[in-house]
């Protein structure tokens, strides 16, 4: 496996980690305003599922236009950038939603939408895009898809366990999010540099 392929897998795996860690921490961020009832988790999970599903669709479509590691890395960078409101102004956003929406179910749903819809939709584009970059032809498409799903879901498993078992014991919520954004940004920069040229052949990833 060449370095570019490894970087594509790294982006897919890290994105899986990031999505689940943000989902867990999102529950923690919403709880002071909307509680921890089943409806809060229902709102968060529904929003993440919706965002991911739209992201898969967009990512698949986007991958048909001169796919490259550089563009994949830019997607990760964009997901990082759109996470900034969640990392920096989540409290005023949550306060505003709490003021505007008295029913905590719809409050939790609206807050999840405002904080997470963009970054998670963009994170959702990464897996189909990565599959396209790694696929050499029809014959290996299923195998590549299987590997990307494996890496991405394994990343999600790590993100879930590390965050809920250990990181919350050591760090504050914002410290964890800021740390993840730094890692996302670093991987995106490495990917853009390694991606080199603006466009590259799909087989060269």
């Amino acid at each position: 496996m060449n370095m570019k392929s490894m970087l594509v897998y790294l982006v897919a795996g890290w994105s899986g980690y990031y999505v689940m860690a943000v989902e867990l921490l999102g529950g923690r961020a919403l709880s002071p305003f909307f509680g921890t009832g089943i409806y809060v988790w229902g709102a968060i999970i529904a929003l993440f599922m919706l965002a991911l599903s739209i992201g898969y669709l967009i990512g698949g479509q986007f991958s048909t236009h001169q796919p490259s590691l550089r563009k994949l890395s830019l997607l990760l960078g964009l997901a990082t950038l759109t996470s900034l409101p969640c990392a920096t102004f989540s409290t005023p956003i949550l306060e505003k939603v709490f003021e505007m929406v008295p029913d905590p179910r719809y409050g939790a749903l609206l807050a999840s939408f405002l904080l997470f819809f963009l970054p998670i939709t963009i994170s959702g584009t990464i897996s189909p895009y990565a599959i396209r970059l790694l696929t050499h032809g029809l014959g290996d498409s299923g195998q590549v898809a299987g590997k990307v799903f494996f890496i991405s879901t394994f990343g999600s498993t790590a993100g879930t366990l590390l965050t809920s078992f250990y990181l919350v014991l050591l760090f504050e919520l914002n410290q964890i999010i800021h740390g993840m954004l730094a890692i996302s940004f670093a991987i995106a920069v490495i990917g853009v540099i390694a991606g080199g040229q603006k466009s590259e052949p799909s087989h060269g990833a």
Partner: protein
Amino acid sequence: MAPRAWFLLVLILTGLTAHPARAKVIVEEKSLYRNVLVYEENGLRCMKFGKHDNGRQACIALDNPEAIVFNSPKMQLGALYLNPSPRNALIIGLGGGIVTVALQKMYPDIQIDNVEIDPAVVRVSQQFFNFTPSKNTHIYTDDGRVFVKQALKRTLRYDIIFLDAFDHLSVPEHMTTREYLLELKELLAPGGVMAANTFSSGQLHAAESATYADVFGPYYNLQVHNRVILTRLGGLPGMDEVRRNAGRMKERLEQLSIDTNWLLSLFSTEVAWPERTRLLTDQYSPSNLLNGRPLERTP
């Protein structure tokens, strides 16, 4: 297998199945949050959350339903030694409605807002635990933190707040934080009293102690198996005042089987925690992970 091993095996198996053999299950109600089980045993009717809950959420004596059986509601009512004339109260966590019923009995005109997240607990308390809300008692099926935020918006204020939302199995982490305690403090009327019933141990006990002290300053710590933290806005009364109020409350509390001397003997301001204990905040509140975790030894 040696006879002793057989004996141990039988002991373990009977221990595992002890509940159905000895206790009579009255009802088991499924809810969104847990299974609420009501059973009778040794003259008591009790509520617990699921068959494997080795504690009890509430109990009443079948032959005297008005007597308070458990230590924790008795200890919470120690709040009346800090303010013996409450006009209203907020009770977060219903249990069997034990504290609510006691307050209704002692203060017929008291206004009570009772918040309970689980509608099944409300139903079971009304059907099986002698809990009849008076015309001045309102029950809200809501999260205890969300209710408090909304109450602040409505500028409500309470003479006593009972926070009884924790048990030995789980701690709602968003209700352990400094920010939440500040919200509760803001919700107290001048001279208002806060009573928190918790089941913390190890690192959570230390973090909880430090967080309450940071928000409320000094407090009385009543510790048996559970702990009850009692504090008052505008300054903690000294033991002289507590004893005077205990004298005023003696007759009414003894009608509920609360022994004044026993309750007074629990009042203590001696609580210690390691110097570098981290406060629980909305940013850092792994309360369930900290509960029971041994304190780190200082070198």
